């Protein structure tokens, strides 16, 4: 299994998401959490960024989406909402976590 890359800043604030995507090899997991979840909403430029990385798995933390008024059912295609328990499952499943 590959690593899980967590991204906790808005893509409009820092280059964390861009860097994580650049340094994540194929099969990596990308988990958007805290302000990182702003990258998961439909109808933005981020959709085309994420579409270029179909060799990776994308997740967004449901609790953080809901806290920000974002609907977990309206994410960019291919991004799966996960709850806190799902977050733990991901941490166990991947080799290690890289916080970006």
């Amino acid at each position, binding site marked *: 299994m*590959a*690593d899980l890359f967590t991204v906790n800043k808005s893509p409009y604030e820092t*280059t*964390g998401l861009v*860097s994580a995507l*650049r*340094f*994540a*090899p194929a099969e990596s997991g990308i988990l958007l959490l805290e302000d990182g979840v702003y990258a998961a909403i439909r109808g933005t430029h981020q959709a085309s960024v994420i579409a270029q990385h179909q060799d990776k798995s994308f997740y967004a933390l449901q609790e953080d989406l809901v806290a920000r008024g974002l609907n977990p059912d309206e994410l960019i295609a291919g991004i799966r909402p996960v709850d806190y328990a799902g977050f733990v499952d991901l941490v166990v499943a991947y*080799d*290690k*976590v*890289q*916080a*970006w």
Partner: protein
Amino acid sequence: MNRLSSYSMTSRHLLYLFRRAPHGTLYGWEMLQSVLVGAAFEQQVSLAFVEDGVYQLVRGSDTRATGTKNFMPVYQVLADYGVDQLYIDQAALATRGLSRHHLWPVTDEETGRDLLTCCNTQQLQAVLTAADVVFS
């Protein structure tokens, strides 16, 4: 299983990821202190500089006028603490108009070996993957 077995080993490969410029925040200095702790516990310690982290190594910095700590000299003695690899993102340097000659030399004084390696994306992916733990 891999993960569990790696935790049981006495020495693990720790990678410290520098992502921010040195003087605007304390992240760099605190990370560097953490590096020294890791090295003191005889772990295998490497550093990687990406994004604004590449500014950490820019030579000629002089903080006397700002009254803040100049921790640049610590980078130059890392070899004495058993740190033997520093990796820096070639693309991040280029984006910022920097190249190797803008950086402090980081060498092992005993052997004269240059500890700093300029890496492309693929090489940095490998460095990140190979570490047991990535601190950022």
